[in-house]
């Protein structure tokens, strides 16, 4: 079935609410407003205010309440409006959700799903456009997933709800209108996927950069790997491709310094150094706060042309 990324996310939510009465959705404007990005539109009417809960603008409290509700036997899906706002809840995510299982000696698990919109491309300027999923991927104890296709948008939620530990789902702002096939499901929350086979270079990417990498791959015969899950990283898939193409460019919408791209590059170096024909390169966001005007925003972000140039620069 062909649909949009947004509709696929909604189908996933509806199915989760239908299948398991422990599941509920909460967040800012998920109910009456229908979700900032209209993902949860109609769900309040369908499932009622107990299971589709509008919250106050209290990210720290409602994310923490999601953790508590998960400990208390529920399967909460908490929506944070954008990744920038998730920083207000960082204490609960990092100091609590991620640590509880290990620090309690394995007594507690936190089956919480935290969804948020990430990324730039909609001229929302510096405080609504960044990509912090790479930061989150630094932290053991949480799983970081980045649906980049309609299929993953449709099915990753179910996989996340089945996981015993906190899962953060990053939905990219530029993908909501993307169309594609839902597929039959289910999908896993572990493996990277080859989205386009190729011979000349491996393009490793995730989330909103996937369409850009696919466009670039057409020009350079690239093999495109969609990481899908940023923690834990499926390096086996990446290394298998790199061993074949012997060259790699990592495309990551996060800032360059201390980025997820840096981690992937380091692991390629650790795992396939002697099989490389050229140093691994990367295309990241420019290290500036995201500007508002379209031409500057475009210039700050990874683009297909930059990826092609990076591939050509490998020599």
């Amino acid at each position, binding site marked *: 079935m062909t649909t949009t990324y947004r509709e696929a996310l909604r189908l996933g939510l509806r199915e989760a609410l239908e299948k398991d009465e422990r599941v*509920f959705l909460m967040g800012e404007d998920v109910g009456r407003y229908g979700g900032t990005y209209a993902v949860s539109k109609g769900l309040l009417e369908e499932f009622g205010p*107990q299971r589709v809960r509008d*919250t*106050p603008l*209290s990210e*720290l*409290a*409602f*994310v*923490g*309440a*999601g*953790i*508590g*509700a*998960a*400990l*208390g*036997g*529920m399967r*909460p899906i908490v929506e944070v409006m954008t990744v920038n706002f998730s920083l207000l809840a960082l*204490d*609960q995510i990092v*100091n*609590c959700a991620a640590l*509880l*299982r*290990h*620090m*309690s*000696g*394995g*007594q*507690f698990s936190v089956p919480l799903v935290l969804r948020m919109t990430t990324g730039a491309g909609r001229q929302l300027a510096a405080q609504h456009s960044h990509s912090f999923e790479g930061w989150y991927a630094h932290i*053991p*104890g*949480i*799983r970081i997933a980045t649906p980049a296709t309609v299929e993953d948008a449709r099915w990753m939620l179910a996989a996340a709800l089945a996981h*015993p*530990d906190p899962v953060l789902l990053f939905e990219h702002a530029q993908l909501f209108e993307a169309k594609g096939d839902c597929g039959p499901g289910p999908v896993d929350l572990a493996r990277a996927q080859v989205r386009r086979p190729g011979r000349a270079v491996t393009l490793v990417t995730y989330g909103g950069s996937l369409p850009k990498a696919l466009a670039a791959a057409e020009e350079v015969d690239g093999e495109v790997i969609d990481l899908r899950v940023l*923690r*834990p990283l499926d390096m086996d898939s990446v290394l298998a491709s790199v061993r074949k193409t012997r060259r790699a460019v990592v495309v990551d919408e996060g800032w360059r310094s201390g980025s997820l791209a840096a981690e992937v590059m380091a692991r390629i170096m650790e795992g396939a150094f002697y099989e490389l024909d050229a140093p691994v390169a990367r295309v990241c966001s420019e290290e500036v706060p995201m500007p508002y005007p379209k031409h500057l925003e475009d210039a700050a972000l990874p683009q297909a042309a930059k990826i092609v140039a990076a591939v050509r620069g490998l020599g």
Partner: protein
Amino acid sequence: MIPYPRELSLRLLADMLRIRRLEEKSAELYGEGKIRGFLHLYIGEEAVATGAMHALAPEDNVVATYREHGHALLRGVPMERIMAEMYGKREGCSRGRGGSMHLFDAARRFYGGLAIVGGGLPLAAGLALASSLRKESRVTACFFGEGAVAEGAFHESMNLAQLWRLPAAFFCENNLYAMGTALERSQSQTDLCVKAAAFGMAALKADGMDVVAAHEAAKQACERVRSGAGPVFVEFQTYRFRAHSMFDPELYRDKAEVERWKARGPIHNFSARLKAQGELTEEQFLEIDRGVMAEVERAVAFAEAGSWEPVEELARDVTTP
């Protein structure tokens, strides 16, 4: 007049003593290097945890702070497992991984042992939300110090709890100092019940040096929560006799103030009242104390005999390496 049957009174006394003796021993063991890291003692505040825990039922939830040895103990976590945890031994109640600040016990619905000030409040709101959605009859009791009221987590969680009428009891242990910062040096409004009232939440104050007053306030709060009337805030006014942690030189308060509060010590005042009304003799007190000391000695022996978690198990319980 203490309004309880003698049996309950003696139980309250014994439980305060159990906390006191456990912690005195812990301080001693800290000096010997057996216990490391941070160790925050509750000595002086025992009436609060004792009064409150005796108002809770086994099906209730408890969320506490890093000054939680007493709460864990009276929740039913065996003293030996608490001591083993402080030693860092595998037989500890968190497998030795948490230490003094991170005591957990799933079976007793004891959710920590959380060492970020204010961090337990959102969690408590969520536990209460879960029991409300699941139509379970549980009170979620959340303990925190007055330092936490400066955190956004306090205000956000109080609002959420009252807005959704969650079955939570917010037990604020006001010992007047957030580490070394006095309440009046950090808060524009020092009446904590006024803060709770700003959210429309029922709020009461209790003398946290008196186990009877603390128990009555906690019972009243829990009854209200159980009745479905929504959350309650209780301010227990109390005082920490010892330093904030073992690293604290106590430059921020004078000795005379500490001595004034010690004169209101919860254990000797309560035992004096029991003696005055003919329900306790000095010999009976000593007998209770000997029993407690024996429990402490068993706990130490258990911890000493415990084992270290093998390094090979370092990454156990991390599912996203």
